[in-house]
């Protein structure tokens, strides 16, 4: 997806599809912020996750049990 997306009309359509009707005066600002967010998170597409499961719920301590020194 080119980084110029979403355009303001696309932002309005996508938001409406998500159940959030945006007034016309919000389209440009929301599109600009959505473009920026997209440019930040898009780098995750470079990663080859193979069988890696998502950490939807996790226990921070499960990796190590020898925290005490």
């Amino acid at each position, binding site marked *: 997806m080119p980084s110029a997306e979403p355009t303001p009309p696309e932002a309005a359509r996508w938001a409406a599809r998500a*159940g959030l009707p945006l007034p016309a005066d919000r389209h440009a600002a929301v599109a600009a912020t959505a473009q920026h967010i997209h440019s930040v998170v898009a780098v995750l597409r470079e990663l080859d996750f193979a069988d890696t499961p998502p950490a939807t719920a996790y226990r*921070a301590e499960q990796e190590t049990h020898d925290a005490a020194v």
Partner: protein
Amino acid sequence: MQPYELTLGAAAEAVRTRRLSPVELVDSVLERIGRTEPRLHAYVTVTAERARRAARAAEDDIAAGRHHGPLHGVPMGLKDLIDVAGIATSASSRVRADHRAEASSTVAGRLEAAGAVLVGKTHTHEFAYGLTTPQTRNAWHTGRVAGGSSGGSAVAVAAGTATFALGTDTGGSIRVPAALNGVVGLKPTYGLVPRHGVTSLSWSLDHVGPITRTVEDAALVLAALAGHDPRDPASLTAPATGYRPPTGTDLTGLRVGVPRNYYFDHVDPEVETAVRAAVDEFEALGARLVEVEIPMTRYIQATQWGLMVPEATAYHERTLRTVPELYRGDVRVLLEAGELMPAGDYLRAQRSRTLMRREWAAVLREVDLIAAPTVPATAVEAGQETITWADGTTEAVSDAYVRLSSPANITGVPSLSLPVGHDTTGLPIGMQLLGRPLGERVLLRVGHAYEQTRPARKLAPAA
């Protein structure tokens, strides 16, 4: 020295030995609030009458031999995302104008049981979704940002208007304002401190923890907060442990990781110098310094945003549709744009977190902790939007402030921020110590050892 100037440890000892009554201590802090709040604006609400009643009750209990421990009769501020029964949790937002908490959060309940006295609710960047807390002024220079989102809590502790406070931390919101105001902030291991009754920004990244004047004080508060609560689905079942650090300063045998990448890139030279000097002090105390490579740095911001943005938008789903005009502009547009993020981006961030946790665990098998700057710059001027680095690149202030703190939110590892000096304009510099999951005791021990080598810190001058 006035009672409001005392550290929690010193106040607790004075109260325990009945050299200071909780009434005197609370009155001193309330009087201090009256003098400094017109300039600092750390508090949303000051609960003076409630605090005086609680102080009298604490005094009576202690006189009758019912001493509840080091927090008994000690004045505290709670970030205004933390529910206290009968009081509004405003989240520093007009969206919560008519709010009133029906019940207390787990942490407020535990602190009340420990005898701590609530003096007020402190300002947050609206719903914790930002790094500056624009309502509040920095305690060292009122023209500078407080940092955020727990800006009110950090300023209150720095200014002597709370003996300790609680903050929340989703990308750095305890540690960033702690560093910018010259106080101590601890983001505990994910799940160690229950979040039931605390307004969420992002469930899988949110933490609650103490903001204090010393590392020892942070240990005293953590001991009252930690422990399982099944009402927080992330709450750990780890057995209770003591956190109070030993008095010695010997760090022989401890391996301190010093990052060779990421944590010293695009960092103000004065911040780097102060942090490296503190690291050298660890070596002088017997620790062994070990260079470490921080993994997956290219994906830190993407992972943080991929998790936080859709979770924050989900939390605000209803009010974003009913009262969007009540949010401040910066928060509203982030919540709205979050509606546009595909589920695939969120899942990639979740899977990236799995990889990042594994790789951090491997690094933390080689060292006992990692030492690094908390934030890459000291407090910027209020209203400043970008920082320009020596190589000519610019970075949004909020991106810069969260850059070094968010890895601990993604991985869930504990991080302790403590003051390590000042820049040439007198603004505080913070260092963070990152540990293994449930490695708080190590961080507190090292931080306390360092503090014992330095002169006792004074309250912030702008107060």
